[in-house]
């Protein structure tokens, strides 16, 4: 098994109504990624792995093709992977086996999302993800089902909204230090609690924004990495895990699929005591409670995340810093690109280039994303 490194990263601003087309966003993210590798020419990249969430967002059938020319992939192998919201980190997983298998020495991983195309709001298109026979006739939307899950989580662990709201306060504050963030800001718990109730118990500030944006990473084999950089970050553990599509048949208290994916990725990376060994955590946080819910799964202890939050351990200077980037709540949530942004954050943190966001002495980090019908967990573990 060959070792795989991340040797460069680049991204666009995450914005609502970003005045760029999808190809333009991809091109800019790729350019910044290659610039990050010392101006490496695309000619030295063996292939491209693309990811983007539903075709409906771009109104484009088979939209992986958008990336061919925009990412400079003409004449190179290119495929697209896609597991809903889990796509960004899944692309890290898929990128890993592209290189580890020996098929590629260098691989560009590109993620993008253009959520502002659907007018007036992307939520309408999310109604097309449900089972067409059993669920769609009920007219559900994502916020409804997340409200169910949040309620269950609060009930099971006897949590108050005030505590969960602190995730939004923390992540938006962290995002102030992210140069590409959409919703960095200083807000209070009261701001979250007093924001519009979307579906109880979800308030507007519990939710990440809809965003446009793109992210690119360059992966390399160990040999290529030695040739191209002095500061690689190693992608040492990868996994995905999917639960049943019938989400109504599951206990929503605990993301068991995230737990299984994390266990597999930790085993691969030689992580035996995650809370002690991992320095940077980037759990998927499209909603406030989801950061806690996912952290429970990553650590493997239901209900531990709210305790760590209450103790202040999830702050950047805490023992278990989560979403030092600002996460989806602060940086923004262009679905597939948001997950890859989290992997990029690990790269910047572990290579010591995260600027004001830097977690001191970070050696090992984990990024996780989640998606499909509340059923898939995708996890990568990186090491300095």
């Amino acid at each position, binding site marked *: 098994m060959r070792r795989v490194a991340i040797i460069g990263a680049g991204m666009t601003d995450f914005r609502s109504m970003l005045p760029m087309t999808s190809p333009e966003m991809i091109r800019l993210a790729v350019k910044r990624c290659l610039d990050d590798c010392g101006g490496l020419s695309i000619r030295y990249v063996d292939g491209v792995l693309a990811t983007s969430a539903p075709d409906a967002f771009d*109104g484009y059938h088979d*939209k992986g093709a958008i990336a*061919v020319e925009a990412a400079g992939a003409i004449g190179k192998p290119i495929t697209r992977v896609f*597991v809903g919201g889990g796509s960004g980190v899944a692309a890290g997983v898929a990128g890993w086996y592209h290189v580890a298998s*020996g098929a590629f020495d260098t691989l560009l991983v590109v993620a993008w999302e253009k959520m502002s195309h659907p007018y007036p709001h992307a939520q309408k298109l999310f109604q097309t*993800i449900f089972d067409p026979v059993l669920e769609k006739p009920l007219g559900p939307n994502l916020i409804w089902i997340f409200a169910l899950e949040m309620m269950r989580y609060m009930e099971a662990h006897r949590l108050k909204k005030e505590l969960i709201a602190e995730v939004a306060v923390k992540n938006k504050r962290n995002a102030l230090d992210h140069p590409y963030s959409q919703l960095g800001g200083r807000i209070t718990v009261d701001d979250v609690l007093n924001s519009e109730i979307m579906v109880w118990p979800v308030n507007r500030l519990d939710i990440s924004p809809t965003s446009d944006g793109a992210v690119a990473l360059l992966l390399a084999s160990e040999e290529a990495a030695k040739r191209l950089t002095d500061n690689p970050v190693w992608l040492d553990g990868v996994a995905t895990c999917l639960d049943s599509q019938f989400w109504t048949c599951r206990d929503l208290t605990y993301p068991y699929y995230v737990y299984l994916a994390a266990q597999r990725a930790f085993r691969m990376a030689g992580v035996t005591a995650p809370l002690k060994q991992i320095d940077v955590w980037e759990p998927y946080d499209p909603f406030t409670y989801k950061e806690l819910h996912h952290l429970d799964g990553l650590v493997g202890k239901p209900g531990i995340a709210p305790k760590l939050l209450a103790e202040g351990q999830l702050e950047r200077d805490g023992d278990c810093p989560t979403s030092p980037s600002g996460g989806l709540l602060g940086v923004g949530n262009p679905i597939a690109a948001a997950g890859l942004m989290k992997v990029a954050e690990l790269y910047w943190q572990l290579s010591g280039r995260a600027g004001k966001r830097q977690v001191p002495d970070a050696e090992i980090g984990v990024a996780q994303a989640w998606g*499909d019908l509340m059923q898939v967990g995708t996890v990568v573990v990186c090491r300095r």
Partner: protein
Amino acid sequence: MRRVLVVGLGEFSPRARETDLEIREMTFEAAERAFLDADMTPDDVQGVVSSGLDFNEGVSITDSFTPDQMGGRLKFNMLVSGDALEAVYHAFMMVKSGLLDVVVVDGHAKPSEIENYRDVLRGSLDPYCTRPLGLDPYVIAGLEARAFLARSGLPATVLSRIAVKNINRAALIGAPYGERVIVEDIEADDFLYAPLKERHVAKFSDYAGAIIMASEDAVAVSDRCVELVAVENSGLSSTPHFWLRDWGRARWVRSALDRIRSKHKVVTEGVDLVEVTEFFAHQELMIASELGVDAGATADERTTPVFNPSGGCLGNGNSLTASGMRAFIAAVKQLRGEAGPVQRKDAHRGLVVSMHSEISDIGSVALLQGVGE
């Protein structure tokens, strides 16, 4: 690196219109047959790689709906957006890298439930420059066929000879569009997209296929196993930017073959058969030409390698993104000696060449051989 084997396969055979089962039930049947064929249960498999496209299935995030049918709950999962041979490509890398030892790969499509497929396919064209023209996207295939004939100097009747060969072969295995025909029958058809006539264009078929791939050190190797020596993918221009194409050529085939030779250090010559997803008759010729085979001779039953012994898409139908899976399984059956009336004598090595979609300039190539080769 360890060898990757195909250890099981299962199909819900192609049919013009499946009226009893819905797409997930078809997928279940194919997977169940694959597990039986491999003498495995879903517990033996560590992951699922599915293929498909949202708009073909009328559901966003279509991968959510596949693994349950394939025993994939709480296992590794990945969807590859495109043709099923691209999913095979990903599964191959997963096993080669050591990430997984045993994985099941899916291809499924039910075009009979799509009311407006041409409109869906038009959605893959560039929204600024091409889509507003309101073209039937199959016009692109007509232009491509015309360019190929001009470039090769072959007469247009060669298209009918390909159709005759594939449709007659399909008749031998009871495929949905198989019939006994002669060149004059096809030539008498109306033009659909000149120079393509009615039976130069594959009609739709509903189909599901599943294969189980494994590392050789994770399974008991039998002579029914087939080695997947290499699979590669290449894209030269994308569907939306078809003005970038080298019209009348499938240069991605040559590019993928070059990668197979250079990366895997294997020769691609000496294959006994080639299964191709020829959604249009000229595509088989175009691909043959890139493989270095005299395109005009592929219509000849006695040519080696033999092209599309299964009857290809013209005989079995266009199963959209599952077409690559049908072609792949047809090749595996040949190498196992289980292809029934269309079995080629002494079939040891085979190629599968599958396009990303009917009108794209991207595709994948797989090289297969018997385990004892």
